[in-house]
């Protein structure tokens, strides 16, 4: 089963209005090629679940610049004045979630758990409308699992089967999101033959990856 897909074809499969999880943290570990192609194809009204919207012109910021996003679910948008501008203008809806809760809600969606019990946010506006549970005398919020139609993830290396290996802080939300979407699209800086990536270096096993974006030839 070959998962290798041309960039344009992979992105063409994303409908207008789709919910996307996009890996990366301030543009580090973000699937830039897929984002550029979404901008090129102009797929709009997207719901984006991501840690942040980076900065204008960087990573997810490019989707914001192109006005392709109608709703953002993130832990912060403070580094992107354009996101804030569109939010204040009422053009984009923003839901803010504490970063650890966001990570755990995505993990929960990908791991088949009913949600997350966290003390983070108790007694703050982040608790508004959320059920709580008392366990051993301590109050926890019941935070729901998050899933998406598509996860767009970036890896340092992939192998021909679609196993993904991450590097340093470019890992961040990528392996969590790769578990939590109906379709998982991965791009990697390099694609190596199967067997080159040792089993302990695989951060996302190939079985959850649906499409691996083909590398453009540089030679010849």
């Amino acid at each position, binding site marked *: 089963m070959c998962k290798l897909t041309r960039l344009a074809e992979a992105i063409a499969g994303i409908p207008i209005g789709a919910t996307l999880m996009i890996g990366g943290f301030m543009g*580090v570990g973000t699937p830039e090629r897929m984002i550029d192609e979404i901008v090129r194809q102009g797929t709009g009204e997207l719901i984006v679940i991501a840690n*942040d919207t980076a900065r204008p012109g960087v990573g997810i910021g490019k989707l914001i610049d192109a006005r392709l996003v109608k709703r953002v679910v993130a832990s912060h948008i403070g580094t992107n004045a354009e996101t804030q501008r569109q939010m204040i203008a009422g053009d984009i809806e923003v839901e*803010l979630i504490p970063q650890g809760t966001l990570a*755990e809600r995505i993990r929960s969606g990908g791991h088949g758990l009913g949600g997350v019990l966290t003390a983070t946010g*108790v007694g703050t506006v982040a608790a508004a409308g959320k059920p709580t549970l008392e366990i051993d005398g301590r109050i926890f919020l019941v935070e729901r699992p998050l899933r998406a139609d598509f996860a767009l993830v970036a890896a340092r290396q992939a192998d021909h089967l679609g196993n993904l290996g991450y590097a*340093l*802080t470019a890992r961040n939300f990528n392996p969590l999101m790769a578990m939590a979407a109906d379709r998982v699209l991965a791009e990697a800086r390099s694609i190596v033959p199967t067997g080159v990536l040792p089993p302990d270096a695989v951060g996302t096993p190939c079985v959850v990856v649906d499409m691996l974006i083909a590398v453009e030839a540089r030679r010849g």
Partner: protein
Amino acid sequence: MDDKNLIAKRVACELSDGMLVNLGIGLPTLVARHVPADIRVHFQSENGIVGMDSLNEHGLAEDDLSDAGGNPISAVPGAAAFDSAFSFGLIRGGHLDVTVLGGLEVDEAGLLANWMVPGKMVPGMGGAMDLVTGAKKVIVAMMHTAKGAAKIVPACTLPLTSARRVDLIVTELAVIEPTDAGLVLREVAPGVTPADVVAATTARLIVPDNIATMAV
């Protein structure tokens, strides 16, 4: 020494060998410069690394290694990288010894507000709510006032970061400890009197007889 480095140097006195420490962006990052040479502190960046270091040489930036602000960093030998869920497991699970954060307001109950100003600035809480709720020790490092207005106030007017009381407030004027009884003035900066601190603070301060001078 400027005010911010004075604050950072005083905060660094709270660190000891082997601790896992998370420094917020802005002023708190200065703390790393003041760690005594005879101890090893492990700095976490919540985007996925323990063992972050500042990158001081040009030409060594690596695309896949950054701090929580997205800026290139370095890593010490013995650093460890991980995903965001694990990173916040360290924070939420009681493994983080100290978090140092900036503040917009701290109140008499020791509660912190530092992530939004309704109608004005809505950056999002990022990791702040997890950090304040989960760290063993929470230190607020901030300028004592903002444009002349007190930041240590009777009750926060801005949305809270957590229902958990912070452990220490360090400003360019004073070290203040939130306690069950209220905010206790523990130290004043060199050349500052307790009366100066009280004058710059709208919260009620408990002023004991013996107040040390910050060892900075």
